[in-house]
């Protein structure tokens, strides 16, 4: 079975197939996002406590989910690339790093903006935000390592190991930050839970979550295609593509 998977994952094959998939994924992503925005900004009722500021949640929460989800995907893809030495898995791992870091950054910014009206300051050492900040450093570590190593293949394998080490540490870091948070501030006001989840608030949250997942798929495929072109630049099919491109 692995032999088949190895054949399928030939760069040339991957490049062609992903080229076909991207437009569909993009359209679906747009559709879900528009539906999510419509539901979130127009249909969902105003919250009796937070008024309309809670609508930031429809961007903040999916982004936070994505930051963790993408790190997991990166670690798993990296692991597969390392163990079975499948080039494509390595490429998918490293292509996820930048978009994962972007979602983490987005979660941090929107989290702090959402917190401002509630607590009056741009940053609060809330457990979730603090874990998100550390996750951002983990991502930046992966990206920095990838750029620091000259040889592309060694760089990809080094970052895969780092991602695996990181993914083992994420739950430990999260637990220790939760522990640290309850130690200093007590589990009171800074709970970040969404307001009493009214069903009509849940829909936009899920729609946006699906939209972000589709968006990740589009971006990771786009980046992977560039990485494939870069790595296969001496092959005939890439040379043909280059000629075509002019």
């Amino acid at each position, binding site marked *: 079975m692995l032999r088949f998977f190895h054949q399928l994952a030939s760069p040339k094959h991957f490049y062609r197939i992903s080229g076909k998939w991207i437009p569909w994924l993009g359209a679906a992503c747009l559709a879900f996002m528009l539906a999510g925005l419509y539901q979130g900004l127009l249909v969902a009722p105003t919250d009796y406590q937070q008024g309309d500021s809670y609508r930031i949640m429809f961007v903040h929460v999916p982004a936070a989910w994505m930051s963790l989800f993408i790190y997991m995907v990166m670690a798993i893809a990296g692991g597969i690339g390392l163990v079975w*030495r499948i080039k494509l898995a390595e490429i998918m791992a490293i292509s996820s790093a930048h978009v994962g870091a972007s979602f983490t950054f987005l979660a941090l910014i929107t989290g702090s903006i959402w917190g401002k009206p509630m607590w009056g300051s741009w940053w609060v050492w809330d457990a979730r935000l603090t874990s998100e900040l550390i996750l951002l450093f983990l991502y930046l570590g992966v990206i920095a390592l990838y750029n620091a190593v000259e*040889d*592309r*293949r060694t760089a990809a394998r080094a970052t895969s190991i780092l991602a695996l080490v990181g993914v083992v540490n994420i739950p430990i870091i999260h637990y220790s930050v939760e522990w640290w948070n309850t130690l200093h501030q007590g589990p009171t006001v800074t709970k970040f839970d969404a307001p009493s989840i009214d069903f009509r608030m849940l829909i936009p949250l899920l729609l946006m979550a699906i939209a972000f997942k589709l968006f990740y798929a589009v971006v990771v495929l786009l980046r992977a295609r560039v990485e494939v072109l*870069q*790595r*296969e*630049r*001496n092959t005939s099919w890439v040379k043909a593509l280059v000629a075509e491109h002019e």
Partner: protein
Amino acid sequence: MTHYDQTDTLEARDLTCIRDDRSLFSELSFTLKSGQVLLVEGRNGSGKTSLLRILCGIRQPDEGHIHWNGGDIYRLATGFNAVTAWVGHKDGIKLELTARENLVFARSLGTPSGLDIAEALDAMELGGFDDVSAINLSAGQKRRLALARLLVTRSPLWILDEPFTSLDTHGISLIESMINKHLVDGGMLAVTSHHTVTLDSNDITRINLSA
């Protein structure tokens, strides 16, 4: 004294090595048997060192396999390391340690050959330097100390990357005689060298990577 198993074979099949997405060499196959020499030639940057690093297992080939007595060297891992001795561009000796301390440590990383440290140093014409800290040795003496690890360990397969660098003509002939004895004992050698290597064995397979 250290007779090796005559039936040892190192078999490489379709080795491919890629650097910066350019293949240094591809579909390279050869077999090395007891008493034989593999001489790797080619211009600088043609991948000579990369090939040797692949042979000894430091670097994995991008394609292809290497078998020692039928077993893949990556599955054998430490088993293959036990039969291999590697001397690269760098000497691999600690400057703060004395010659004896360096060899004692080198011996712990291989199968001891029964030759004691003093005898090995004498064979390398480093007699009397036992307690001299390596930092005070000349480049040629350091190189000979690095090669002395081949005497204190018993490894049928020697993989030497430019062993003759910084050696004078006398040093080169000293090393060549050591290699000849190794081959007569049934050992094998994979070597790169810019100097012309005059060895007794006529069983030399030449690979030119920039042909």
